[in-house]
């Protein structure tokens, strides 16, 4: 049971959502946006998340579904992970998000929630980072589009009152080859000890990682090094120079095991790219 009272709002459009947020903040309240609600419910129940008001974004139409136009494919932030997986425009997105939670919970978790929530893994982000997606961010001053790789650094930089509306991926990525490796402690339905997602296109190999550090990342330095170094052993030996933070140690795994998993998985991915021309 959630042991505290809170207000609940369900705006119909972006403008209204931002205004409700601004008003609540002006009134000295602590509002929170949400969409699927899986984190909000479990964390509030446990007392690790407190808020005075919830703003439910599910009624905002332009955040729902996906559509294709001449400059790419747009994914609404309200799409559930199962919807994103079943959309099939980018099978790689399906491959990655299908590893999050179980089927039932993926009926609730949304792309926006997975990427903007409290849990640090944000695995749905990995393909969008690799696809150089645009992220649409809305706030009191309207909507803007930013390159995701600039807007995301450890977490998505959102100002107070801002929220993610959707993502856009250029159609050219439909042809890029992809692979991913995910490692868990014991149960597949658990957080990743390591999740490496990788694509290969005319620019070379691209790599994004979750679970290894306290936040997911895509490192251009790592990609540059990998694409310029033919020897896999050499890459593995030097790889931590390009990892943006220390390797995580927690109840799920020690840092040494995570490192071992990372090294053997990266090696496997590079091996496979070596076979793909």
């Amino acid at each position, binding site marked *: 049971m959630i042991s505290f009272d809170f207000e609940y709002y369900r705006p119909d459009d972006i403008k209204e959502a931002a205004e409700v947020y601004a008003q609540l903040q002006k009134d000295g309240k602590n509002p929170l946006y949400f969409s699927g609600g899986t984190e909000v419910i*479990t964390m509030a129940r446990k007392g690790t998340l407190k808020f005075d008001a919830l703003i439910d974004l599910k009624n905002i139409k332009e955040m729902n579904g996906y559509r294709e136009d001449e400059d790419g494919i747009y994914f609404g932030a309200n799409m559930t992970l199962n919807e994103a997986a079943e959309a099939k425009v980018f099978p790689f997105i399906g491959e990655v998000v299908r590893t999050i939670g179980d089927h039932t919970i993926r009926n609730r978790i949304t792309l926006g929630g997975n990427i903007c929530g409290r849990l640090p893994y944000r695995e749905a982000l990995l393909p969008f980072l690799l696809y150089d997606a645009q992220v649409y961010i809305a706030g009191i001053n309207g909507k803007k589009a930013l390159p995701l790789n600039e807007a995301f650094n450890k977490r998505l930089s959102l100002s107070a009152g801002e929220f993610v509306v959707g993502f856009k991926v250029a159609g050219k990525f439909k042809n890029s080859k992809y692979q991913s490796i995910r*490692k868990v402690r014991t149960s597949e*339905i658990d957080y990743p000890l390591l999740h490496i997602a990788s694509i290969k296109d005319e620019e070379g190999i691209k790599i994004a990682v979750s679970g290894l550090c306290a936040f997911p990342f895509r490192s251009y330095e790592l990609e540059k090094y990998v694409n310029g170094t033919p020897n896999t052993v050499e890459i593995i030996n030097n790889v931590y120079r390009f990892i943006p933070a220390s390797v995580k140690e927690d109840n799920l795994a020690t840092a040494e095991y995570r490192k071992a998993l990372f090294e053997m998985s990266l090696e496997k991915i590079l091996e496979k790219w070596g076979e793909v021309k």
Partner: protein
Amino acid sequence: MGSIGISVVRREAKDKVEGRLKYLNDYSSPDLLYGAIKTSTFAHARIKSIDISEAIKMPGVRAVLTGKDLPYRFGIYLGDKPPLAIDKVRYFGEPVAAVVADSQREADDAVEAIKVEYEPLEVINSPTEALAESAVLIHEEMDQYAHIDAIKPEPGTNIANRTKIRKGDIKEGFEKSDVIIEETFSFPPSDHVAMETRAAVAEILGDGRIVIHSTTQAPFVVKNLMGAYFGVDPGKVTVISHAIGGGYGGKAGMQLEGLVYLLSKAVEGRKVKLVNTRDQDMITSPGHIGLEAKIRLGATKEGELMAAEILFMFDSGAYADYAVNISRAAAIGCTGPYRIPNVWCDSLCVYTNHPFATAYRGFGHIELAFVIERAMDILADKLHMDPVELRLKNAIAKGDTTPTQSVMDSNTGDLKACIRRTAEMIGWNEGTRIIAEDGKIRAKGFGCLWKAPAMPTNTDAGAIITFNEDGSINVHCGVVEIGQGIKTAFAQIAAEKFGIDVDQVHVIMDVNTSTSPHDWATAASRGLMMGGRAILSACEDAIAQIKHTAAQVLKCPEEDLHVWGGRVFVKDEEHIGLPVKDVALGYVYPDGNAIGGQVIGRGKYISRRLTGIDPDTGKGNPALEWTLGAEAVEVEVDPKDCSYRILKAACTMDVGKLINPTMARGQIMGGMAMALSFSKQEGFEFNDRGQVLNRDLRSYKTLRIGDAPEYLVDFVETPQGDGPYGARGLGEQGVIGIPGALANALSRALGVPYNHLPLTPESLWKKRRDNG
């Protein structure tokens, strides 16, 4: 018409799959009040103060209680546990205060408003720490605790019970051994993770009668303990058990019932409901025992077992509950199903500052089997002998003696046949370690099982049979339906006896201690055997009454009559007879005269020729029957990161006689799944302050349907002479050999001895690296 050996669909199946079956927390009533408890944030601490002044003033709050209000000590064998902590807390999650309010919301809010101040004490995080000379005492007043004779606490230490087994001459046994292995084993405390969390509702009526509805496997134990703890007249206590969403031992003994009764008493007897949240069910209520163990096992070079020296140090957690009897059961069966002439075992139940332990499927046997089955494989390695051959060579059989020096009688199952069949199913002879082209290793591991019920020598069951106008039968028995399908099996036993269709037998699903015949408890896998015997005896009693009335109508001696297929008739002139329905509620002559009255079959069974055990040697006859079996596991391991999949799990069990093949298979598969989950990935993780870090299902991971291996189940049927139609218990046994079998398979795969559970990939990887 035969009903035995047929896979009749369980009675509650349709309601269960349609979600219509009602569990206790589904019931509500307008006059209900709600309880909530405040739990300790420390694993070991003095309670400096509890401030309830805010909570008591809150809206809807009817009562707030702390330990000082409740001067009782609970404990099924050893009275060591206050319902709410008094002066100090002994584990993380221990109840320290309770609230009764008009709604759950108000009760929960009031709990938040209770302020407790603690002064931390040194925390004991393992049996080894608890047994150290300098260890702090978790129970300083152990000498004042009441306990039953069979339990031997050692005041001034942290030992709640010690059971000794001394069989043969251990010194001589090792002298005759050509090969001796010595190993240590361990696993942490864990949880049952029953789908339904524990719940209880209590009310005290105007005339002092106490009515308790509970998610209990043991309603008669609860009734009895209510008398023992509170001095209430047992006839004034009614305990009602409804459908149970998984018991696994965790709902035996006294759970929430004592506290919820005290909460009701605090609000003038009004009806109060107390339901565990998931985290409370995991750590505040008791779970699965932990273990540290040492073994020395000796054999001749031909592989004949000569001596076993075993030390069990069970992690009971903060209170004794069932753990003192689990440690005793583990001593009684310490050798596993093997013939060993010389045995020395000390089995200690040790207090720690962990959540406390209660019964868990297997009750001492899953624990002892992990130790002995790993030891057997280690010994086989050292002997350069096939582990299956070593097991076959030493398999216990009729005429051999158990660790308590009791002789295995003519009802002993055929363990060798089980071992051979399991080896065949798992493909043992086709290779036990195969490296695939992709580098993955497929390996197999073996583990045998045995189990006897650990129960009082006078354990009993009762049954009543009544009749309906159409001659159909109502069966009333005090065994609780906890998902094992027992009520359906009972219907089959009664139908078989009367030679009628099983649909003509109705079983009463709920158990009510005021109206159901006495039954010890739905535990120890004894329900089928003992309840089955009581039902057969009730059938015979009813048949005698039917014959008595029919003999008058048919004008023949009673002994010439036979009851079968809905008729009572003269044995040698079958056409002379009557429908049972014309007799069952009294026979009415054409002129209106009636005779006989209704038939009420009374049946009972009490365990036969059991004794306690000698405190110095363990000698005695405590085992009603031994169920024997053999299990095996096949894994596929990635040797790089040591991640693995379980491909197959196999079990052959000598069940005496199959009553319901599909349900028996289901019980055994369920047991294997539970044990695979336990040994692969379960176990509480503690920090150095004794706090449980994985106390929710987000972090405590059980096996999922997608992780399930292919299950291979088969049976051997060596009749249990005193069992109903030759049947013996099989409900728990599927878990027992699996932890050893899994550890053996992984040890074989990676060439490293794995003796500690859970077998997570990282733990496998680390051990292999540390072993070079």
